[in-house]
């Protein structure tokens, strides 16, 4: 199969007058992870719902595992796994019964369903809890069971919609490792997240959504390079100097930003020697600085810069 497992072409989705997605196009190559970043309401879940056949696009086409999500939704369904923001498990049923149920619905015989369930329970370290009703599971266990349920049918493509929201740090790390293993097996993953470290860690490429539009895409490195420069951070000894510091830096051709909460002035610097310009400007203005640093751009910077500029443009 040479076609990429996820192909989205000019997809728009409208709910009445509200445009949740606006001409979104993207592709995810086999065995890779696409991180979909965006604020709440940016359209991430809407896109996942369209790709997992839960709701049709208003315009445009999307193909998953080679099948059209509208015309061939059943074929799509048998190839995908979906893990939503809220664990979609039956609270009344045990972990075991939940997985057997999904396997049976997919068409597995009783024996095969049970084998598959046992396999996944072991893999997700739920064997001991297998017989307990899922309502007694902890948040992390529920999420693991949910992910296990979406893997029952050996899916080619997995959608993870904010999979670690509300999980404690060690559960998050565990989930990340599972995802990494899946990708190692050749599974294609589309991951939505608000956590930038998550996208940075897991995603091969990142697409930033804002108000339903793709505002940037590329690898984490490319995005960082696009936003560009490193950032100089000066911590002021006397917060009252803030305005003068901003003026002094602006006068030397920089574009400083004052963070009033932390009493720091940040300003992008194109090259290392510009740090000297910052120091000189502040020194000449007679402003005392208690700390000075040069930071690499983080995904946070990318995200905030892109999403904010798109917000303001809208």
């Amino acid at each position, binding site marked *: 199969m040479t076609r990429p497992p996820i192909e989205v072409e000019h997809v728009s989705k409208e709910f009445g007058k509200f445009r949740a997605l606006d001409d979104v196009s993207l592709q995810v190559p086999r065995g890779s992870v696409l991180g979909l970043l965006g604020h709440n309401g940016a359209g991430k879940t809407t896109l996942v719902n369209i790709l997992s056949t839960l709701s049709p696009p208003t315009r445009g086409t999307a193909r998953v595992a080679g099948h059209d999500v509208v015309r061939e939704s059943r074929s799509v369904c048998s190839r995908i796994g979906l893990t939503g923001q809220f664990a979609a*498990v039956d609270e009344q049923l045990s972990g075991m019964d939940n997985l057997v149920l999904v396997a*049976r619905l997919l068409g597995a015989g009783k024996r095969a369903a049970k084998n598959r369930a046992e396999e996944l329970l072991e893999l997700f370290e739920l064997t001991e809890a297998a017989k307990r009703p899922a309502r007694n599971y902890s948040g992390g266990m529920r999420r693991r069971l949910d992910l296990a349920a979406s893997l029952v049918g050996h899916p080619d493509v997995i959608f993870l919609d904010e999979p670690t929201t509300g999980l404690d740090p060690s559960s998050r790390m565990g989930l990340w490792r599972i995802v990494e293993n899946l990708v190692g097996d050749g599974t294609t993953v589309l991951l939505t997240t608000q956590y930038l470290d998550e996208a940075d860690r897991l995603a091969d490429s990142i697409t930033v959504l804002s108000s339903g539009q793709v505002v940037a895409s590329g690898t984490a490195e490319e995005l960082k390079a696009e936003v560009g420069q490193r950032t100089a951070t000066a911590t002021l000894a006397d917060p009252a100097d803030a305005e003068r510091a901003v003026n002094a830096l602006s006068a030397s051709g920089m574009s400083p930003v004052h963070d009033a909460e932390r009493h720091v002035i940040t300003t992008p610097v194109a090259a290392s020697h510009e740090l000297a310009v910052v120091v000189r400007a502040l020194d000449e203005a007679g402003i005392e600085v208690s700390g000075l640093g040069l930071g690499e751009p983080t995904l946070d910077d990318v995200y905030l810069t892109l999403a904010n500029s798109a917000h303001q443009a809208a």
Partner: protein
Amino acid sequence: MTTTLTAPRDRAGGTEHERRHWHGANVWTQITVLTGRSLRAVLRDPRIVVFSLLQPLIMLTLFSQVFGKALMGSIASQTDSYINYLMPAILVTTGIGASLQSGVGLITDMKNGVLGRFRALPIRLGTVLVARSLADLFRTAVQLVVLLLAATVLFGFAPEGGLAGTVSAWLLALLVSWSLTWVFLAIASWVRKEEVMQSVGFLAMFPLMFASSAFVPLDALPGWLRIVARVNPLTYAVDASRDLCLALPVGSGVWSALGTSVLLLVIGAVFAVRGFRRPL
């Protein structure tokens, strides 16, 4: 969830050999598996069964004690004990109460999130509803049997129609219940809010129940209420159930009750499936 998760890499996705796709179970398997799921949920939480029995038991006790003596005169032409008169009605109203609960249960299920998973599986969504209605029908059948036993043992229920009449009345009550289950599933799949569903049910149920021949004969109702009761479909269901139970001459009442039920069932099913398919 620490170290061992990294080890069995080939098993999450399956080896190439294992990695054959399941393409969705056939409709029959879908229905049996999903019905089993709903039933198991009920069995795991017996409180549901106990509490849903409590209300009809209380009604049975109250009505038989409160109205029993007062009404003997006006029902004498049909039977010689009020409990015999009351029980066929209790069967029908309990069945309808259970249908309302099906609707509420569907909305709870929608919130639970597991329905979201079903939507992304290669199955026919209608089978989820069929399974739910069947599981609830089974539960209602058991409830009604328990009620009949309680009425027999505690209150001396011994209808003129004997076992055959009682069983036919039981079956009729189940059919009425099943058809209204589909009506309430249809409402639930469009409304999708528990509170609204509860009040729709309450508004529909109470007037229907009391402005009918369920607890008192039509002649004992004031004039205007008698007119309402005469056009109330519940009156026909209750009368039909009573005809069967009390070995009264079975007229067109039973047939119109059957026909109405089947009609409601079909209409309910069409709208339920259509409503349920709408995206969450």
